[in-house]
């Protein structure tokens, strides 16, 4: 079944909602009083971007983009680990 007809209608509408969510996250990153607030909203931003890239990989019908969304999701987790390790131990353990 070719799902291109519903993706052409559906993905632009959903991308508007995603763009509003991303701008609100960016507002929190800029406004965030403390550093953990920024890290938290960058975290949510990363996972949100992973979903959006997954959606685009459906929309454009290519299978290469979905690997990028996996990498972004893993990067968002590693970002938390490094930042919190730096908060406590002031070194990154390289």
């Amino acid at each position: 079944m070719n799902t291109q007809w519903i993706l052409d209608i559906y993905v632009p509408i959903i991308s508007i909602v995603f763009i509003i969510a991303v701008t609100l996250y960016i507002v929190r990153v800029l406004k965030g009083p403390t550093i953990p607030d920024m890290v938290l909203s960058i975290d949510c931003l990363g996972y949100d971007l992973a979903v959006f890239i997954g959606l685009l990989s459906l929309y454009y019908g290519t299978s290469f983009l979905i690997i990028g969304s996996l990498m972004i999701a893993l990067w968002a987790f590693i970002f938390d680990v490094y930042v919190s390790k730096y908060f406590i131990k002031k070194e990154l353990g390289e």
Partner: protein
Amino acid sequence: MLIIEEIVLGLGVVFITIGAICDLLASIGLNKFPNFYVRMHAATIGTIGGAVIPLIGVGLIALISDQLGTYKYMVFGVSIITALLIMIASPTGTHILANAAHKAKLAPVQPKVVDKLEEAEEK
């Protein structure tokens, strides 16, 4: 036009819509809550409801979309694995972050009634 494909398509679209709504609510919540620890409640809505569920929806739609050819099974597998990894990684990530923020005293517990962890640390 198998009926099962219509059902799977509808299910995928519903999952992605739920994800988009959860994401919107989480981003509004992230801006409106008073301090860092309360904002983490909104962050989990944003990560689990806003990232895991739509990725499952993307996987479901990929399963029946023929324009991907034989790669549709790969897109399905990778999106389900990404959803699973986010389900595992995001709570641990935010937990580590909260522990570091509290221990390094970076995020003030502003509207505070009682902070048991602080009392336990003083002992």
